């Protein structure tokens, strides 16, 4: 998921300085998960902007409807076409993908010249949860995880070294740049040790092929997921029942206790 946080209100108000009518658009994807673009966030933003004397139109997108998906955001923008046409600015409560997909759609498909501003700062592709997340993948186009015991040094090492560790590992195996962060290469060493693959640690990993990351990258999906496919995936019996049984399953320690009894 793309982690994100809301920009300081002063910055947002700076964008909207002199704009009277604003359309605030949420996002049902990552921004809903991180509470930066869910319905509540949209309502709160609208309230703050109204207090500043602005006329606000709210567009909330339900879970699963992401602002970065042109087909989905098109539905919601078209529903409020009049308000979009008459607004002075659009504020997107999503990551930068959503902002740009919306801006392109408004410009090229709706034929309107409107400023589309970001309400959030995207903080990277992260894994983990429920409360603590860490950046794990930078979508570099040439996955190195098969050579590094499943830990990406390009992302997890502060220097992005393919052949670490550097000489700056702290006594508690933390990174020299930031004592809050683990040294990725000590983690890789320990995991390779557990896997009995330390011989791989001593091998040189070739320099990363950055040629796979020529920006902007374009990607074509031959068999796109339509609305019906999406409904089908959501209603899939196995998925739903599997998810439900997982949610209500007893935790391993509870199962152990039951066995003891």
């Amino acid at each position, binding site marked *: 998921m793309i982690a994100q946080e809301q920009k300081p209100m002063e910055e947002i108000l700076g964008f909207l300085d002199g704009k009277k009518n604003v359309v605030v658009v949420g996002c049902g994807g990552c921004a809903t998960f991180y509470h930066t673009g869910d319905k509540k966030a949209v309502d709160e933003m609208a309230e703050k902007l109204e207090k500043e004397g602005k006329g606000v139109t709210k567009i909330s997108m339900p879970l699963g409807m992401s602002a970065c998906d042109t087909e989905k955001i098109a539905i919601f923008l078209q529903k409020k076409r009049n308000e979009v046409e008459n607004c002075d600015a659009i504020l997107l409560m999503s990551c930068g993908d959503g902002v740009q997909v919306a801006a392109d759609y408004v410009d090229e498909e709706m034929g309107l010249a409107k400023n589309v501003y970001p309400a959030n700062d995207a903080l990277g592709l992260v894994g983990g949860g429920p409360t603590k997340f860490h950046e794990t993948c930078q979508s570099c186009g040439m996955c190195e995880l098969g050579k590094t015991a499943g830990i990406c040094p390009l992302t997890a090492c*502060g*220097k*992005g*070294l*393919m*052949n*670490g*560790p*550097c*000489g*700056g*590992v*702290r*006594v*508690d*195996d933390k990174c*020299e*740049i930031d004592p809050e962060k683990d*040294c990725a*290469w*000590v983690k890789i*060493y320990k995991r390779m040790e557990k896997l009995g693959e*330390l011989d791989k*640690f*001593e*091998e*040189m990993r*070739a*320099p*990363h092929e*950055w040629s796979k990351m020529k920006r902007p990258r374009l990607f074509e999906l031959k068999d796109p997921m339509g609305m019906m496919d999406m409904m089908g995936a959501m209603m899939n019996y196995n998925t739903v029942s599997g998810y439900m049984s997982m949610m209500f399953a007893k935790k391993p320690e509870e199962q152990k206790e039951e066995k003891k009894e």
Partner: protein
Amino acid sequence: MPEEIYSQMMKELSEGKYVFTGELEPKKAGNVNEPIAAARDLIGLVTACNVTDNPQSFAYVNSMAASYKIQAETGMECVYQLRCSDRNRMALLSDVLGAGTLGLKNILALAGDHVALGDTPDAMSVFDLDSTTLIYMIRKIVDEGKDLAGNEIEDPPKLHVGGAAAPGAAYLKAEVAKVKRKINVGVEFLQTQVVYYTDILDKFFDELGKVDVPILVGIFPAKSYGAAKFFDEYVAGVDVPPEYLANLKKTKEVKDKEERKAEVDRVNIEFFTDFLEYLKGTPSAGCHMMAVGYPRIIGPLKKVME
């Protein structure tokens, strides 16, 4: 040991001489007068001098330009330090070819500190290569006359490549494995980060085992309490012994400048005499004396090894 020898330092190392190297630091300035003067002071005391490349990520005069000027004007052989922090593989290749063109014969290939630790923290750190892949690239250039992409290099430079080792690394097993990795790709000499404790060095040599690559052990006789304190606080992987620090701190009480200098020298000679005596019994091939701005200490310390 390399089959072909291009530099005086490698010649002496291959002959089994105990080699001393010094360290020169270009500044944030439009000249290299200070390191040139320091190099003159070190002639006859050390075989070669490292010329630092943006140490601790403070941006100074380019180390290739400084190495060339120092070598040309003083005759001191330079170990040109080159770090991956600020250059991608193309710039590194250009610099290696440039160094060869300017007659530099030794390169110390380093990853380098992250720019966040230095005086230009908003810069983008590069690290397109790391120390191991830089060593690999330099060997490929020198030995095969090819760059990393396999492009031919006409009249490839003739120079040696060294690497760093950190005996005081917090997670020694991984550090030693990395040093072995550098040896696997053809590093020709190693210089260690500063070490003050004999048990740290013993552990490092034990863990590393017997290797064919000459290792120069780094020491840092500090010219003042402040310099030692800075090393202790800001240089990763180095712990300065508290009693040595305390003895240096006491020298601040001496009012007369000349007497104070003599007292600092006495503290260093006392501490490092024991350390150098110990070094004689280790597999080290030399000593890298990082006495930046403190050349007068090198003579007396060298005497210990004679």
